């Protein structure tokens, strides 16, 4: 029996690797053709924005949807990554790739810093701690103009990659890599343990899972992704400003993830694309944007807490 199962798993693994390769090939074709078909740089720009948000949303969903911890500061990792790139470029004139990698590392360190207290604190306490932390960073970013450039932030950062098309490819690939890597990770034993923690933490602990370790690992992965996203965004926008730490940003991420569907990997991506494009196209509602966002969240939480993906799954079942 044992041998038989192993063989079957191997075949399935090979099969899925093939599947993955096919996906990647199609994806590559798609993103190469896409800019050629729609000769619209602005559209590509929006897509890049959506990609960046998607990355942060995925990282946030890792903690919220999969482990069940509410983190009110995805902005912390993202902003820290962005400011790291800003500082390093301005004061150390670092090479862009180096900057990006260090942004990821900063995300990692910060996530450890925030992740360790999460072991001691439950739900609401932890959420407040993260909210406070992001408020502190926001205040610091605004209050120390000599170092951080104050309200204006740091400007004049050179691009990592020049050209909108190439940025589109790069960011899309980042998202793809993220999604694939996480999907793989979740299919492993580790991923299943992670999901079990969300379902019932006490039961998981009783089953012998070291929940603290998994929480920290999940938090760290999320931190790295968000840090990378932040660093990349600094290169793409060529500047970084205190807005990265704002509640508005955190809130956008939450809206995206909750709408798209928490607890899935694709959900945040879909939510990000939907909302970013809607945001740009409905610029008439510009000043009402946050109102609309919050309305969406309220609606989704009241009527379909599992978001769009959840609703689709429910429909499929029926």
């Amino acid at each position, binding site marked *: 029996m044992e041998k038989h199962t192993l063989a079957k798993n191997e075949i399935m693994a090979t099969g899925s690797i093939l599947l993955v390769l096919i996906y990647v090939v199609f994806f590559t074709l798609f993103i190469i053709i896409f800019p050629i078909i729609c000769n619209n740089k602005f559209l590509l720009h929006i897509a890049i924005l959506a990609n960046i948000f998607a990355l942060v949303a995925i990282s946030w969903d890792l903690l919220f949807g999969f482990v069940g911890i509410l983190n009110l500061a995805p902005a912390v990792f993202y902003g820290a990554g962005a400011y790291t790139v800003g500082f390093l470029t301005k004061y150390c004139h670092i090479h862009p790739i180096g900057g990006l990698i260090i942004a990821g590392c900063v995300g990692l360190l910060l996530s450890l810093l925030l992740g360790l207290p999460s072991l001691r604190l439950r739900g609401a306490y932890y959420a407040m701690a993260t909210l406070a932390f992001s408020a502190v960073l926001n205040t610091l970013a605004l209050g120390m103009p000599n170092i951080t450039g104050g309200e204006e932030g740091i400007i004049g950062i050179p691009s990592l990659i020049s050209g909108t098309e190439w940025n589109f490819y790069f960011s899309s690939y980042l998202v793809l890599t993220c999604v694939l890597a996480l999907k793989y990770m979740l299919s492993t034993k580790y991923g299943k343990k992670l999901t079990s923690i969300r379902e019932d933490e006490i039961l998981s602990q009783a089953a012998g899972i070291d929940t603290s370790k998994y929480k920290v690992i999940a938090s760290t992965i999320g931190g790295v992704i968000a840090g990378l996203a932040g660093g990349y965004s600094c290169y793409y926008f060529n500047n970084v400003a205190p807005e990265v730490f704002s509640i508005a940003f955190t809130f956008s991420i939450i809206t995206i993830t909750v709408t798209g569907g928490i607890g899935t990997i694709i959900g945040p991506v879909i939510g990000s694309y939907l909302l970013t494009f809607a945001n740009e196209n409905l610029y008439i509602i510009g000043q009402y944007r946050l109102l609309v966002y*919050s309305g969406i969240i309220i609606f989704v939480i009241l009527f379909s807490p599992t978001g769009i993906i959840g609703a689709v799954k429910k429909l499929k079942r029926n």
Partner: protein
Amino acid sequence: MLLQILVSGFLLGGIYALMASGLSLILGVMRIVNLTHGLFFTLGAYILFSFIIGTNVNPFIGMFFTIIVLFLIGSFLEWLIIKRIKYSEINMMVLTLALAIAGEEFIRITWGPKYLHIPPLIEGEIRLGHIYMPNQRILACFIGLFMLFLLMFFLKKSKTGKAIRMVQQIPETAALMGINVRAISMVVFGLGVVLAGAAGSLWAPMYITYPAMGWTPLLISFAIVILGGMGSLGGSILGGFLFGFATLLTSMYLSSGLVNVIPFITLFIVLLIRPSGFFGKDIF
């Protein structure tokens, strides 16, 4: 100088204590993390503004009506939306956050994004030696303490108050004893909202009024409630005064921009060392 700081700190602390008590009440009785507390702080100020500027009533009557309106809004909100998400603590946080942002945008649309000034309810100041105490601050602290006193009296002596305390202490059994937990939830949320809004309407004439003014008080209230112990009303009141002192002490040594960092750092440290605070029981 120190005496001035102590006095000013005390006066400010009264307002902090008022707001923190509202949060503590909702947290303790309903077990929900209410992120709309800052919104109602702001709303209180704006509603008072409308009463004073819009109509020509006596400001004190304006305050009275503000409180009534806030209670109605709070209870209604609880009945309409909050009660549906009781099952999930996390979703509740996201929901109240969304409500808070929606509310802030609503305020921004209705009253405009510009800074507003509410004239002080009482002009002038009292001087005792070297100490200056603007009358508005004394009034604010006095009204705050009065409301807190009313609250404690209400909780201790009245039938509804006792029912509220029962729901806090033995939630499951309270329903079995015939207490209308639904109604109590509405009342408690309304009360919490009133306390926040009263704090806001007392605070605003001394400073300025703007749509996003509620976030810092929200975090400060949480810091106070956590510091004083979740579920402990006395702890929140005491914590409120402590924070009042701390804020003014730090404002002496730090630039005003950085003063707000202190409550957040304190909160962070307290959460790391002793999440249940000084007086509280660990609710979560």
